[in-house]
């Protein structure tokens, strides 16, 4: 998030500290304190990759918390999640500001869905279903108030969107913009017009836009090679995943290095669940039933709760690593930071394409067979 490059039109980015440009802080303030009798803000932040959406969202979050007690954060960027491990669409309630924008914060979401991939391209329909479900929950459950006199609980919403704005990503974004009733849309512009979203309120055809559109410039020139961006994104995902599973080890242990964490996880007492009482489903491809366990072993799964109301998408309580399968005892062994009382409700394991961090498979003295040393680099 910090870059050594300087940009003349906004303030400099010093190493280790992100400073918000004036344009950004003006935008945040106008959203929060705009006009006194306006309803609580519902803001959507969009823009191309690496333009600073997450940074702006975090900043806006802090500003809103100056006025409101709690703010809801709907994270739809599954590739670069904010408060959850990657691959998860989540709705979090934040009540504490986070002044240092560089720290990774892991929070437990109010409600989340496991999508099983880092981009919505594999199944835009299901992705949108999850987004709508989360927004509906926000609107119907969280904004209801106890007494009927005051109409709404004050809970502003920030919606963070993926940076993929070409092709089917663009269409997904348009649908989201039309579904959520927004008060403000913040569009970040990069230095390269071709990478940007179209000008104006591009999501409504007949000019029926009821929300305020704020266009602000990205602070960093994001003209890096796409391959490097990919690698950086993958690295951040891995860091978030490691931070998530660090929660399995009781806090207070000395886990500064990832190698120590890997060894600790290899020795951790896992949860066990009988294979007969759990279903396994791959979210994006069909696995033959005789090969299920080959596919499941040593993979990251979403811990889902099935319900009759929504057979397609499953509520998720967290992620887990299937660290071993014993067919003779009929048991699955799962490592997860989710506490046991929440696990009781889990009855389906959702497989996806989220990769287990390589470091976990390479604990010293406990190298997993899935980490191979003789792989030719040509493939």
């Amino acid at each position, binding site marked *: 998030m910090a870059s050594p490059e300087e940009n003349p039109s906004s303030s400099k980015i010093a190493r280790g500290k992100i400073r918000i440009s004036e344009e950004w802080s003006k935008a945040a303030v106008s959203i929060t304190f705009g006009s006194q009798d306006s309803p609580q803000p519902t803001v959507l932040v969009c823009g191309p990759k690496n333009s600073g959406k997450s940074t702006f969202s975090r900043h806006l979050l802090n500003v809103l918390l100056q006025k409101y007690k709690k703010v809801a954060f709907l994270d739809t960027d599954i590739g670069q999640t904010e408060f959850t491990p990657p691959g998860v669409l989540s709705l979090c309630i934040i009540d504490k500001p986070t002044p240092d924008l560089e720290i990774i914060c892991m929070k437990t979401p*109010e409600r989340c869905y496991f999508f099983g991939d880092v981009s919505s391209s594999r199944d835009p329909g299901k992705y949108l279903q999850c987004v709508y479900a989360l927004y509906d929950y926000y609107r119907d459950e969280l904004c209801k108030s106890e007494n009927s006199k005051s109409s709404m609980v004050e809970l502003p919403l920030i919606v963070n969107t993926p940076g993929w704005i070409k092709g089917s990503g663009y269409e997904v974004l348009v649908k989201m913009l039309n579904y959520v009733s927004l008060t403000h849309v913040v569009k970040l512009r990069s230095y390269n017009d071709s990478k940007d979203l179209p000008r104006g309120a591009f999501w409504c055809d007949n000019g029926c836009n009821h929300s305020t559109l704020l266009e602000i410039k990205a602070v960093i020139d994001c003209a890096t090679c796409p391959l490097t961006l990919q690698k950086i994104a993958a690295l951040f995902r891995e860091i978030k995943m490691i931070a998530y599973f660090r929660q399995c080890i009781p806090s207070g242990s000395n886990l500064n290095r990832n190698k120590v964490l890997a060894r600790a996880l290899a020795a951790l007492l*896992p949860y066990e669940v009988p294979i007969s*009482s759990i279903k396994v489903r791959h979210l994006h*491809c069909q*696995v033959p*039933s005789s090969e299920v366990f080959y*596919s499941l072993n040593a993979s990251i799964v979403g811990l889902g709760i099935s319900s009759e109301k929504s057979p397609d998408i499953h509520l998720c309580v967290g992620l887990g690593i299937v660290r071993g399968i014993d067919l003779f005892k009929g048991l699955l062994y799962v490592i997860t930071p989710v506490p*046991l009382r929440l696990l009781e409700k889990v009855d389906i394991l959702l497989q996806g394409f989220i990769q287990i961090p*390589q470091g976990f498979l390479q604990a010293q003295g406990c190298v997993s067979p899935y980490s191979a040393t003789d792989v030719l680099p040509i493939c």
Partner: protein
Amino acid sequence: MALEEEEAVVPSTAAADAASIGQSYNSRIVPWLSWDEWDHVRVSLFSSYPDAIEAALTRVLTWRSRGCIPPLIEVTADFLMAQRMDPFFGKNHLPDAPHSVDQIVTNLYSMAVVRLVNVVVEKKRKHKLTSIAEAAAEYSIPRMLIDIRHECSHRKLPALPLLRDAALQALDWLRSYYWDPQKNALSSPVGGMREKIDSDLRELTLRRFTVSGHRKKSRSIMNELVLQYNLNTSEVVSSLADLLLEVIPSLIENHQQECESGVIWKDSSAGWRTLINQISSMAQNLLLNLLTEVLDRVETQESSIFEAGSDQWSSLGYGGEAGETDNLCSLFAWLIDTLKSGTEAHLSEIGMSRGPLILILRRILMLAPWNKQLMDSGVKLAEVIKENFFIDKVQKFQSLVSSNVDASDRIPPIESSSALFIEQEESMREASQKLSLFGLNCEDNKLVYSEDSKSATISGKWSIAKSWSSCPIGMLPPDSINLSRVPKLSCDAEGRPVTEEWNCKELNSCACKRGPESLKDSTEEDSGPRKKRPRKGSKETRDVEEVGLEVEGAGWLIINGAWEQVSQDYICANSEKVAELVLNLL
């Protein structure tokens, strides 16, 4: 929901840390559990048995679902799937081939060619500087494929005969570019593990027992061995047992001389003990595995002796075998002594793995109660883990034996052994009674759970595992039944475990260039991988397999560590064998 909030600082060092882990080992995540699995798929894909290819393609599908499959494997599978759909290449797999099957197959082939060229070229090509054709030529992709890719992208799809030819060329190229080089690049040869382990062990002992050994090198060999041990426990254990058997006569001799003269010899017992202790501090349960291995060999020895000369109880028939069994028993005794004299860490290990040690004691009891050396070692072991029940039994037997002392203590005195036999018959009768009860239970189709999983199901679905020892993610910790830790993951469509066997020797010999005439019919029955049912099944069980029906009253038993389906008749026919199993269970 109230998980603790976690704030993790992400300075640049943490990022570098995460990145460097992958690089320091120079390794990648792969979707296969072992290189053996990869090799089986390789052989099956390029074989000429449709069943084998089918199974391999299913496995590649599974690899795809894990998300880290190398793209070249996917591309190979794409071509083979296209060929499978093509009626030209053998049995048509589409039940009612639609009229448009040619069009479908054309599309499949074209897509496979385009993917092949893109996957290989796109990664490294400097964007827009060179054309794809130029970049592809660097990898010596056949020119035909490059042209087809161009046609597919910019013009219309080529004709089917051309595509068929291209598919064959593509498969050949893939084999020479990826599959064969990868096979050659594997440092530990698949299937040739044993030689490597042997040579490693010998080198290690050589270095340990020479005065000026390079610490670093022996350290790295040790690490390699431990890695091998984790992946392939039985091979390493058996190799170590072989090595020890070679030196055990001299160890015993030297030990005696040591005691007399007080001089420590170079390849002394103490030196070997330290080595074993060192290895077992890094390799879990090594001593346990060694003891089990030695017992296994004693068992085989004894059973072969029985089979060879069951009516000759004289010492004439023994000769060489007696020497070997002697060695084994001495090795057993030596190992027990090593166990006893172990360090504190060992003794705590003994405390943990008490179950398997009791199993060993039982085996000694069943095996050769008249073998004094074994029994003495057993008593020593029992004293260590404080198993008084065993010591009582031994004393009982010894009192029986000593009442009729014979010249060779290997031959059981016939007169007093009759009491032994009567006792054994009694217990067998009891066991068969219990077994028939068990069979009745099976008729009600109740599944037999082992003690452990019972308690897990009572308390609800999820629970914390009762015990665990550190093991890599993807493997299981060692326990009393399965000493090897790599999990067996094959199951049938209902999720019940089966033993899968890939018949690679035959496939290897038949791997040849694929063409329409070289494809054999799938009527051959012993080709390709099959899900094997219990080998020692009676005829009834085989009928079950062929007909595919569930025999009434069939249940599931653990035989040799695997759940296997047995029918009522099988139980009755093999009552003795099964009685023995039940004895072990009880």
